């Protein structure tokens, strides 16, 4: 066991020495791997932030009922009473036209326009939360509400959340696809670098075999080299993504503020960082294994 550990320690150190011995080559290889990995990692970071954004908004499907602009308050009260008795509704919130006007006036961009209007243009409205949140049940309710008197417009407010969710799913699939493609690229890079390493150390390999080295003894430094390449590339990718998050944070916040949204752009969390580094190291190892199978026989 001690001998085995000693062999691994020495192989790891030897791999590190070989990596450091050619600093420019190693740095360029790490940059190539790092940038390739930064693309899916950056995509994952943006998705995580988009999920966070979706989480800050109401994901529970709701129906908004807008009364006609000329409807009296009495009509709204009747609708409210009707909704209260209607089965399948969990919560009803009346948003009066006065409340809507007051809220709009708080928006600096709209205040002047609204104050220039001769009368309150907003209708009374209801925000309805149903007990059955399935899209078809919600749609049935919306169709029903559209038939009611003095109801001008009925809108399913959850639609955009679902669209965002579908977009996130598409994004997630794209990131996985990109990750798989660039992961294959990383394996190819590792394969080629290890091939060059084997060629460089051909004499040493031959002598070691003649002196009684096992395949494991000969392969170990190259495997560690592959893992170090992958890990180093992963660290470069992590740094690139972190720097991009820092760089993009201020302009993104400015953009989101215009939509009254507040999300702090975060880099990869601990889980995703560990996943990135493990994935990168693993791919480096796989590239090394394939290369050694090809070139050490």
């Amino acid at each position: 066991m001690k001998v085995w550990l000693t062999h691994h320690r020495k192989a790891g150190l030897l791999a590190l020495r070989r990596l450091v011995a050619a600093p420019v080559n190693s740095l360029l290889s790490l940059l190539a791997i790092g940038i390739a990995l930064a693309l899916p990692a950056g995509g994952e970071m943006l998705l995580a932030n988009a999920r966070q954004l979706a989480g800050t908004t109401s994901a529970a499907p709701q129906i908004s009922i807008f009364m006609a602009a000329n409807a009296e308050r009495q009509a709204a009260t009747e609708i409210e009473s009707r909704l209260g008795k209607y089965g399948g509704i969990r919560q009803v919130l009346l948003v009066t036209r006065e409340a809507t006007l007051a809220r709009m006036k708080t928006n600096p961009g709209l205040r002047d326009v609204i104050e220039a209007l001769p009368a309150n243009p907003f209708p009374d409205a209801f925000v309805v939360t149903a007990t059955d949140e399935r899209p078809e049940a919600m749609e049935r309710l919306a169709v029903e509400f559209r038939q009611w008197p003095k109801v001008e417009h009925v809108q399913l407010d959850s639609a955009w959340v679902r669209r965002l969710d579908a977009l996130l799913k598409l994004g997630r699939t794209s990131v996985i696809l990109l990750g798989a493609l660039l992961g294959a690229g990383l394996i190819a890079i590792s394969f080629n670098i290890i091939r060059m390493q084997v060629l460089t150390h051909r004499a040493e390999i031959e002598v070691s075999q003649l002196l009684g080295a096992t395949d494991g003894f000969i392969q170990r430094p190259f495997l560690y080299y592959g893992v170090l390449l992958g890990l180093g590339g992963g660290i470069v990718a992590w740094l690139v993504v972190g720097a991009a998050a820092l760089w993009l944070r201020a302009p993104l916040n400015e953009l989101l503020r215009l939509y009254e949204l507040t999300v702090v752009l975060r880099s990869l969390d601990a889980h995703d960082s560990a996943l990135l580094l493990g994935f990168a190291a693993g791919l480096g190892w796989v590239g090394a294994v394939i290369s050694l199978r090809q070139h050490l026989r």
Partner: protein
Amino acid sequence: MIRFDRVSKRYEPGIDALSDLSFHVAERDMVVVNGHSGAGKTTLLRLIAAVEKCTAGAVLVGGQNVGALSRSALPWLRRRIGMVFQDQKLLFDRSVFENVLLPLSIVGFPTRDAAQRVRAALDKVGLASREKALPVMLSGGEQQRLAIARAVVNRPNLLLADEPTAHLDSETAADVARIFHEFHHVGVTVLIATYANDLFPGARRVQLNHGKLLP
């Protein structure tokens, strides 16, 4: 220790490097294999170390048929054999000390003890003062002695040497031959392939001619 049982080695159809060779080397024996260039001396050594497999017959080392060994079993055979190669196979990017250390690293010898072993081996071949030098800084004779130190550092019970005195002047060649005699005297079985007849007095001779054993 070594037994050749009707061994033939054919590289190309119709051309036998070794043909129906049978002989044996006893433990603690010192045998010199003589023959002209191309007689099959190197092939004979390569078969013993299982670098190549024979086409017919069997090569037994310590009772083991080395031609039948699996790839994973080969390292364990080679660790029992010290080999001095015709082209020395030194690692020119490593120091004298590191070259001799390599066989000990392969078997996982403890670092501190390994350093002592390496220095003892270098002392034995007269290179104790050159341990930090690179092989390229050594003379031909010193390089040959370095190759011998690396071959014996594991204290093998069988030492194979392929033309260990080639390209050396007569004085240096005699010096190298003396080292082999010393190992033989401490009980190591020594098998040397060489064209030089007069450097190893007292050793048993095996004469090869075009891959065949001369009586």
